[in-house]
């Protein structure tokens, strides 16, 4: 898969979790403003972490298995997308478990139709 390897993995995450929204109707994409707000702290903290890790040489990315597009600080575009895609999938998983089990998550369930 070459340069598309990392990007394809991220796309795979979105494809695998899509039925949770489409079939189980967990309404996570539907609440995209709340989703963006909820992802913001994670996104800031972890992108800063990665920038530090790259600067310190803790880890590095293959230029052959990524698009090769690096943003300022040397962070690949895919890595930035990772911190949006994985949280989105995690929220979908949480809402799916809640929908199926009915277990309390500490906040009111989304009323249908809104």
């Amino acid at each position, binding site marked *: 898969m070459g340069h598309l*390897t*990392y990007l394809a*993995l991220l796309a795979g*995450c979105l494809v*695998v979790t899509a039925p949770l929204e489409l079939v189980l109707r967990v309404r996570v994409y539907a*609440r995209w403003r*709340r*989703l963006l*707000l*909820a*992802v*913001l*702290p*994670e996104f800031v*903290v*972890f992108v800063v*972490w990665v920038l*530090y*890790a790259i600067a*310190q*040489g*803790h*880890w*590095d*990315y*293959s230029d052959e*298995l*990524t698009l090769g597009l690096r943003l300022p600080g040397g962070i690949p575009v895919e890595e930035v997308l990772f*911190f949006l895609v*994985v*949280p989105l*999938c*995690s*929220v979908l*998983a*949480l809402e*799916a*478990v*809640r929908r199926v*089990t009915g*277990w*309390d*998550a*500490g*906040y*009111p369930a*989304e009323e249908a139709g809104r």
Partner: protein
Amino acid sequence: MSYSTLAVVAVVGVLVVDLAVYRTRMVTRKVFWAAYAIIVVFQLLMNGVLTGLDVVTYDPGAIWGTRIAYAPVEDLLFGFAMVTLTLASWAAVNRRANTARRRGLDTDTRPSSTR
């Protein structure tokens, strides 16, 4: 700070945020751990591919050296911190939004202007 140290600090940090800052208490809830169990399987899978194919490579000096499915164990702490921060924030955002909406919907008169 090494990756190992940062990973431990991150886990402690998100526990403080979840339990004391947001007070969402996600790590005390069954629904969180059931979801996390599913997420961690996919994390090991995806991380295994990323590290197994060498999409990401690590400086041996920055990690403990123990690996699970090709990835350093620190990645599990990294992933836990990332997922927990996200889900606690999601709970906090929804709690606030639903409470605000309910307060608005449930009152016939206009909301009090005293606060």
